[in-house]
């Protein structure tokens, strides 16, 4: 189960499992987001390389127009994946405990 939508704060909220089967859904949503974008990952339980690819592609597109993705409320497991992937050097990331 994966869900992506805007929350009450106007941020993008993702929840569930962002795997290869859900990557297209996430990409189609994020392709419509302009400028700076905060992605609230409070409910995100799992991400694979397909999901990382979605974040990377979107971040590149937004950075080209001086925007970008900020990833907030990232849990420990997903933060480990970001660190292993070097995404901690590319994205502004706030962990759930920070």
């Amino acid at each position, binding site marked *: 189960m994966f869900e992506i939508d805007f929350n009450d704060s106007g941020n993008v909220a993702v929840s569930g499992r962002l795997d290869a089967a859900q990557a297209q859904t996430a990409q189609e949503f994020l392709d419509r987001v302009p400028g700076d974008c905060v992605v609230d990952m409070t409910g995100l339980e799992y991400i694979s390389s397909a999901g990382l690819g979605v974040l990377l592609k979107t971040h590149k597109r937004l*950075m080209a127009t001086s925007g970008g993705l900020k990833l907030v409320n990232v849990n420990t497991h997903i933060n480990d994946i970001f660190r*292993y992937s070097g995404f901690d050097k590319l994205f502004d990331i706030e962990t759930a405990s920070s």
Partner: protein
Amino acid sequence: MRKEYKRSFDEIQNIVADTERFFEEENIDNSLRLKVDLSIEELFVNMVTYDTETNRDILVEMTPIENGIEVSLTDFGVEPFDPTQPRDVDIDASLNDRSAGGLGLYLVLKMADSITYHYQDRTSTITFRNCVEGNS
């Protein structure tokens, strides 16, 4: 557990459900779940995406071992491709130079405590282990 899955990303949710059930039935430490899920998905997706010369189902086998789990994925009727070889992924590259290509197998090598590859009679089998505290 021994089960075959269609060559479709839609099968990922079924593999996840079967893995969850196997962990419960065999009392495998749940702290290993996300690592195991990730490695299975990345290896399965790699087979579906790149082993296009076959339409055979992919066999997934799970076995409880001391302090953990051993998982094998077998693909039939394919050319050899050894995913255990180190991936050429530059995680320090700048944003413009980064791509997601190769990241999946790179993560598998990071996540698995051990991983082996066997190829015989046009059949590829990848086996990995995950144990609590890295005891393989």
